[in-house]
């Protein structure tokens, strides 16, 4: 279990769930806690969430698969979400998306060989004023150019310890 959730967080969530009138409300909270720790939510994570909240794995999975920011498949250390919505599109996001694929050597949905980056499209990030934009993990990056992307990837890669 420890590789899904640190004990102290597990216990805190479990305690909160017992107090909670509707533990269901906490599904996303628990899944996000597991994802924060583990990077993604494996099957065992869904089962653990079910245990904590007194729900069946299916009842968790119904919610987990609804949201695109709950990863039910392994991802790299850093997930790159590239905005493909209208404001970014209007300012060249498509080309930058291709550039990212080239640079990283992967197609959308894939993870780099070294396990550092996963590339995913996302809808509008609310960074339309700084379009084109992307988000790596929970960090927002705007005003992207090829050069800036190179820099960002280098920093992120270094931070990820790769």
């Amino acid at each position, binding site marked *: 279990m420890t590789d899904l959730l640190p004990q102290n967080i597990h216990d805190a969530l479990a305690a909160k769930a017992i107090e909670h009138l509707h533990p269901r409300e906490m599904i996303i909270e628990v899944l996000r806690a597991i994802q924060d720790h583990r990077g993604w939510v494996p*099957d065992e994570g*869904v089962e653990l969430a079910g245990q904590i909240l007194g*729900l*069946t*794995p*299916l*009842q968790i*999975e*119904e919610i987990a*698969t*609804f949201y*695109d920011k709950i990863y039910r498949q392994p991802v790299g250390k850093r997930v790159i979400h590239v905005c493909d919505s209208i404001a970014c599109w209007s300012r060249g996001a498509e080309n930058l998306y291709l550039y990212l694929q080239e640079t990283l050597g992967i197609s959308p949905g894939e993870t780099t060989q070294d396990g550092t980056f996963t590339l995913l499209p996302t809808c509008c990030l609310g960074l339309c004023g700084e379009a084109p934009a992307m988000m790596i993990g929970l960090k927002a990056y705007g005003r992207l150019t090829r050069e800036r992307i190179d820099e960002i990837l280098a920093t992120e890669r270094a931070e990820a310890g790769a």
Partner: protein
Amino acid sequence: MPILTIDNQQIEVLKGTNVLEAAKGLGIVIPHFCYHEALGAVGACRLCAMNFVEGPVKGIQMACMIEAKDEMVITTTDQASQEMRARVIEWLMMYHPHDCPVCDEGGECQLQDMTIAGGHDIRRYGGKKRTYSNQDLGPFICHEMNRCIQCYRCVRTYQDYCGGTDFGVLGTNQRVYFGRFRDGRLESPFSGNIVDACPTGVFTDRTFRYRTRYWDIEEAPSVCPHCSLGCAVIPGGRFRELQRVRGGVNKQTNGFFICDRARFGGGYGNHPERPRVPRVDGAQTTWPEALRALRKRITDLVARHGPGAVAFLGSPRASLEANYLLDSWAASLGSRRIAFDSHWQHDRSARVAAGKLGPRAASLEDIRCSDFILMIGVDPLNEAPMLALAVRQAVRRGVRLAVIDPRPVTLPCAAAHLPLAPEALPDVLEALAGGDIRRLGRREAVLLEGILEQLRAAERPVLIGGPDLLGAAGIERLLDTARLLASEHRPCKVMTVLAGPNSFGCGVLARQGPDFEAILNGMLAGEIKALVCLESDPMTGSSDPARTGMALGKLELLAALDYLPTAAAHHAHLFLPTTAVPESAGVYVNNEGRMLLFSSAMDPGTPISVSGGGDHPPRTFLPATPGSEPRPAWATLGHLQGRRLSLRDIRQAIEMEHPNFAGLSSLTTGGEGKRIADISPPPETAPEIPFPHSEGEGTLRLYAMEDFAGSGELAGYASALAPLRPTPFVMLGALDAKQRSLSDGQQVRLRSELGGVGVALRVVPDLPAGIALVPRLRGTALESYVPGRGHYDCQILSEDEEKT
């Protein structure tokens, strides 16, 4: 009551009716998928578009979502609504595979029908098709997600209606997926309903896979014989074999759905050892021979020993007509020794219900519509599964449910459970009926006070009880309680679960006659020389199999009419094969006294899969169908009395003799049936009947209970149900387990008067102290533990203790 106009026709409908239903009332059937009468309107498929020309809403609207209102003027044939429906069908068909030729749904596929009705023919969409991978959903249901049209009916059936928690909707947008978390058998005992609910071929009956096209199957409306509720089912046969059962519609009983025992438990009629040929003294013979022999032997016995030497045993799984003819045969011989259920408590319970339930009888629909439910001594999921679903529907509406029962009583809904030992139930009933509440513990008294308060406050309360723990005495008390709680303005209805599909009918026929105990004593004393068993097996059916076996051994003549390879049929000197339920027509009277007609879906015969050795049918030509000897029991019984009777004649005779059955001969199949008329005046009170349990004395008291798929006589012969049967186990309370240093899951030794067996231990936290429970499991060491006969003294030891 609103009056509205649809396609220039006016209709008046009940307030609250939706426009789609209103149109149906005019014979205007508009294509729809997500709407289902039992599941309600959710507006997902957007197919039932109509044009609202006048009234409170205007324009193209989804008819299922709109309540019919006065002055609405609606069209369904206008261009706009037709175009909308055509588009919706086109969208639904964008990705649909061209696999109708290999799809089991073909021919009875709503999607096929709606595609035609919606005017969609050529697929214009030329993009990529969405595809899914399927899951293994276990032995009963096949999954083929590519056929899905996302009407959400399966999940609304499985989760919302049936309370299942292991199947649901995954994903979003055009990739929503209906399935489980992982491969595996669907856990709900009502899982099969998604087959009926799915309008296309996503969920099909695996046991029926690739066997028959819809237009080749022989079907007829029938009644489920697996318990006393009388759910409507539609058995289907082909190649002389019952191939499937699907749910029928009876709004008073099951509504639209059925349980998996009914659906996948139809195989008893196909049993490879089913005796199909008449037999005399172990040798097969012809019908005339067998009938002549039976008549002669009985005449001889009567001549030698008087009519009292011949006894009769009817059966809650035989039709009313057959039971009636058995009764009249006994009477014509001058024998008054006839009982209708070899299980003494079940017999007495049925008589009490039949005699006293009267207008207080609650139907399943009454339960669904009730506003407070108290269940006492009843375990619906195992004893009468659809009752659990009826209760769930009330609970979904926010109705409170209280359960008083020592057993764990699992339900597909929330309930307040008060686990009391069986011995405490009489006190509870006493207290409910206004007796002294202080005889119970303090905690119990407080809870019971609360329940009573809610009972009094409710407008449509229902009490539900069963015979296994309450016995006839308890059922009688429960009825008294309801009478006391009811007032002129407020009914208090009761449902009593009974043992078999026709227990109630047998209860009416039995009147003040003897019970099987008396017959058993007569056999043991040597007074009774012959027993005629109509579709009943006292060897396994009576409360005391051992004593019954001994008694049967003393008989000069054991005659059996049956369609099951029972022990009694096996040992009978004279055997006459009868038709199984799907092969017969007749009447069952369900547990609330509702007369329900079933008709014959197929003729009897050895399945071609058997006679052809699993391959092609044999090429030898015979004048008669192999294995087609079984005859309806009523026909044989008429014949034995030298009477040529049609079912209609018999029904009329029953009506004449038993006024309660008024209306019997005008019943039709497929409707709601008809409640029997209440006997007036009710029969004199029966003799005082003891509860099926005494005060406890120290050793563990072991009670047998029913199991969903393991206990029923018919279920026991249905091989398809095997995956649902548990391995033998015994249940013990946490405290008792701890005292014995036993833990959950451990293998233990169970010792009682019936001997010793090794079983797994299940620790049930709140099982009352001093009590142990076993399911009756046919075909296992737990077969001879009969529910409803009181307790067995027992010991539970760890395997090591046993050795020392």
